[in-house]
């Protein structure tokens, strides 16, 4: 055998490569391992085990009612075929459940109840709305919350978008206002 090794001396590095080259794909297992913490964090987020959202905005008073608002994810709006979207979650105040028929979200003041913006889906304990963020949104824009009662009553409140989602403001600033 010693003769053979003398006849063709492969470098140790090359021998190692030849021996293991078809097993390198085992490293692909690192992909799911790496994403596992994120997977479980997301699972907890959607179950509500880790709160209303990744970043709580706080309690917002809307006329006689109030809601707790949160950003589902503390990050910039995500691209979607329909434009850039930002997801918010909300929970109504403890006594509001039967009072409020619908809750809406919009950037800028709505002209009427019919244009109140996107509606929150879900239950008074946990509901979500996906808000389109126009690319030309000014950094000082306001987020308007409209709430509707079962008798048709309407109440509104606004908070600065910078308070609702600093990540969105950072994203808008980074993109610059498009002409």
């Amino acid at each position, binding site marked *: *055998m010693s*003769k*053979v090794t003398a*006849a*063709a001396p492969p470098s140790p590095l090359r021998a190692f490569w030849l021996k293991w*080259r*078809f*097993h390198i*794909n*085992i490293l*692909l*297992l690192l*992909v*799911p391992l790496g*994403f*596992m913490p*994120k*997977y*479980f964090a*997301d*699972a*907890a987020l*959607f*179950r*509500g*085990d880790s*709160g*209303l959202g990744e970043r709580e905005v706080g309690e917002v008073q809307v006329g006689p009612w109030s809601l707790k608002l949160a950003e589902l994810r503390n990050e910039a709006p*995500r*691209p*979607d*075929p329909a434009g850039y979207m930002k997801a918010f979650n909300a*929970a109504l105040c*403890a006594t509001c459940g*039967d*009072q409020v*028929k*619908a809750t809406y979200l919009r950037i800028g003041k709505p002209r009427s109840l*019919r244009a109140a913006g996107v*509606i*929150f*889906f*879900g*239950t*008074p*304990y*946990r509901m979500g709305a996906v808000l389109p963020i126009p690319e030309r949104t000014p950094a000082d824009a306001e987020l308007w919350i409209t709430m509707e*009662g*079962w*008798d*048709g*009553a309407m109440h509104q409140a606004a908070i600065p978008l910078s308070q609702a989602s600093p990540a969105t403001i950072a994203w808008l600033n980074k993109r610059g206002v498009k002409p």
Partner: protein
Amino acid sequence: MSKKSRSKIWFLVHSWLALPIWFFVLIVCVTGTLAVVSQEIVWLANPDVRASKPSDDAELLSYDQVIAAIKRAEPQVIVESLSRPDESHFALSVDLSYPDGRSLEVYVNPYTGVIQGISPSFNFKAFTRALHGWWLVPFTNGYSWGWYLVSLLGLPLLASLVTGLVVYKRFWKGFLKPTLRIKHGARIFWGDFHRLSGIWSIWFIAVISITGTWFLIQAILFDNQVTISSEPIVPVITRDKVPMSSPGVPSPMIPLDDAISIATQRIPGLEASFISLPSTAYSHLRIGGRGWYPLMFQTAEINPYNGEIAASHLLSDRSGLEFVTESMRPLHTGDFGGIWIKLIWFFFGLVLSMMVLSGLLIWSKRTALATLHALKRSAKTAPQSIPLLQADTLEGNR
């Protein structure tokens, strides 16, 4: 090109198709096999998901009775959806919204309405499916790249099937004369095993590779905003159709069981095996279930205030193309005919996993053998380079 060298090329292609990614393919096969029976594994591991009958003559509760029982036990919770699994030994799966903001799946006894347990935060079923389906890579903008990575494997799998049948000459003879030589060493055994399990899995490998490739096409279509769906986009209930009421008094909705009976009377053949309650004051109640063709679902959207059917999506609404494309997922997962179909899929999933492993073993043993021969020869005579694969014997030429 001679017939022999052509078949040699086919053989080389077959040998190399999965080799550089054998471990990835193996894990995808194993996780897929587990995902097929993940619901059953949960059933075995967690008594909460079993639908035990309190007595022999116990009858199934209606959905309204189930909701009433849940409300008695937990007055604060809000029921978001209910689903009756295909097999009667599973408890109802009900999504509940809790006052603390959690939204959880709970298991409810279909005979008593008792909440038997809350789904654990580690969801084995969802986890194995996510691992198998998209390698846990998150979906951020359209389909995740993990989905593409896994579904791309459909193509080499299909190519393996085709090249395998080409190089296995007169493979149909294998059905009549099954060969599995145990006493002739590992190389012979794994070769026989690979061929024997291969021919009996032709149908399964074809199904899995074609449906797997469909998942790739589906992602490409979706990410390019191409849709072939005939499903109607149901507009919300208009403002004037939602009755006004006094402050603090939500407009009353019709009982769930009434809504179901209205829908099933007007739409013959509609089953109500899952119910989604309206998620806003302007949303519909959605009920659905399998139709006469067990691989597809039929649904109806009902106005919860007056029982009017706003829209339905039935088998008869589907195009021929949709019958093909919508059948792909159940064909891939084996989830369309109960436990026995699932067990068949599970068994052949194991066989397919073993084929990846046996393919690798054959390759490494043959290479090791060929290397040994080459070394022996070069030790006897002057050193000369012998391409390892030329020292091979062709598969099927035995």
